[in-house]
């Protein structure tokens, strides 16, 4: 099935650049030149991926990202500018799945898009209707939906993948490098920052007490574990 990608950028030449390359790779492309438009398209046309420029007038990319996350877990790649390294972390912090830095090459853009779409794809071999329980946390594996005390929690595609990795290996420590490799891809293996930001966001959403996490526990110097609960 053709994947729909939304490009959000106020520079027409960037929109055209991304659109030309994505179309030639057989993606369906939607475009928005500002944040308001982007939110509307995400809500109504449900794209499979959003390429979101950070520096836009009125609603900047961070705000758009934050707002999208209130109702959708569509994968988001933020497009930032070189030299604004803090933007990268802030973007991830607002719930983006990945980032790409301007100036970028056409092949880099396409590689990132493919990687994020691959990550977002629902893992196969999941029996329908199966629901995973961990304390107050429920994961509907078939629908890829997460509930805390029965209330739905919106996770980004990446966050969901991390959670799934941990849930599928309850009681086992997963090394950081492995999480990075499995969730983001081999080229991200050393990018601990991106993992920390995502783990911290996950905990904000899932843990009652950030200082005493029950679902995602850090094993210092090794990785993360979802412990076996005794109750």
């Amino acid at each position, binding site marked *: 099935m053709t994947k729909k990608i939304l490009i959000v950028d106020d520079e027409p030449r*960037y929109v055209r650049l991304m659109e*030309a390359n994505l179309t*030639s790779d057989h993606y369906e492309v939607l475009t928005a030149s500002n944040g308001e438009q982007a939110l509307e398209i995400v809500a109504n046309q449900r794209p499979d991926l959003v390429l979101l420029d950070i520096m836009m007038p009125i609603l900047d990319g961070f705000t758009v990202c934050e707002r999208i996350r209130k109702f959708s877990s569509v994968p988001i790649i933020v497009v930032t500018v070189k*030299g604004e390294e803090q933007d990268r972390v802030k973007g991830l912090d607002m719930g983006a799945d990945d980032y790409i830095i301007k*100036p970028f090459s*056409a092949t880099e853009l396409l590689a990132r898009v493919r990687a994020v779409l691959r990550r977002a794809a629902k893992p196969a071999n999941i029996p329908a209707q199966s629901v995973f329980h961990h304390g107050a946390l429920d994961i509907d594996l078939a629908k890829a939906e997460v509930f805390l005390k029965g209330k739905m929690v919106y996770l980004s595609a990446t966050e969901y993948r991390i959670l799934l990795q941990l849930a599928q290996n309850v009681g086992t420590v997963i090394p950081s490098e492995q999480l990075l490799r499995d969730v983001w891809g081999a080229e991200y293996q050393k990018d601990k920052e991106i993992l920390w930001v995502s783990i911290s966001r996950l905990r904000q959403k899932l843990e009652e007490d950030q200082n005493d996490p029950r679902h995602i526990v850090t094993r210092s110097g090794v990785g993360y574990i979802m412990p076996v609960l005794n109750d």
Partner: protein
Amino acid sequence: MTIVDDLNESVVLKPEDLKAVYAISLAIAQSENIDSALDLIVIHTRPVFIFDNMVVYLPQEGSSLTPSYARVIGRGKCAEGEIEWGGVIATEAFSSKQTSLCHEKLEGWESNRLFWRDFLGLPLKAGEEVLGVLVFGRFGGPPYTPEQIRLAEFIAAQTAQLIENHHLVERVAKLEAERWLRRMQDEFITTISHELRTPIGFIKGYATTLLRDDTKWDDESRREFLTIIDEEADRLHELIEDLLDSSRLKAGTMFMQMQPVRLDLILREIVVRSTARYASLAVQLKVDHEVLVMADPVRITQVMDNLFTNAVKYAPNSPVMVSLVNSTDTCQITVADRGPGILQQHLEHLFERFYRVPDTSITVRGTGLGLYICQQIIQGHQGEISVSSELSKGTTFTIQLPCIKNKEMALPVGEELEG
């Protein structure tokens, strides 16, 4: 010379003295300017306290006291002004930090009142620091009474307050100016990085698009991408030229190649070129006759190009009216648009290096260098550039250049050779 210490505490001010002191404090509180406040002090002091001249000495660099304010209101008119200003008593009061008194009767004082001198030096104290000295001079007596000295000390305290306030205002203004400059520089760096990176991003992106070996682009797309690369390379070039010009101007190393120039012809040429460049630009040119100026044609063209580009950027879809008129020794170019206009408070900063009108959409590209360069070039021609603007009516730039009166000059640039 005596130092007056511990004035009798029982000295009581008379009601009229109190009234004067009150008027003086009021004048100081309401005055913004130090000299006008001192003028008021003179006016309010004189009725209750006889003196011929009053001086305020302030320490200059190297700590020598220099008169910064002086008034002669003497009974003998300007004669007192030429004789004595109490410099010695000022130094005494300044170093001792105490009220100092000098009473002199030179030979012949009985016949010439100017030889009988009473000078009172009052340190202007702000806490422990002495800011300067207030000196009252009196010729021909009588000597100052303790009541008068007491009153003078009140006045000195008020004056010290005035000078202290003034210092604070100056310091705040200086800090404000520094902060403003720093902010401009920060904003400039942000803007310039964005401006330089944007074209590079396009060039990189479209070049790598064309280089993809897994895709064949049709001719139309190839042409489109190559045109973008070409245009963005031009933009990068312009931007770098602007930056270089700006630093050359700052360093004073930009030299004008002055020559006789037919300004009317140059203007026509620029209009033709600019309208070809910007499809949306409509220019109405009003030039009646030949105008000959000494100018650098390349630089004048650069100024006009800049004004047109600004009109396209900041007053899109508005016609631009250009006119050229001349009087005997100057000519005037006006470039007017009917765009959204510029708020009055921004106009005075418009020609400053790095200044950009705040709240300009970040999609409108600019560095805050263009108008600075224009102004410097025009000034290099002994001319002037100014701007006026009205919100939702439009903006007008006016350039004045000196004309050549003698038409017997060499063949000007811009005029075709005939025959």
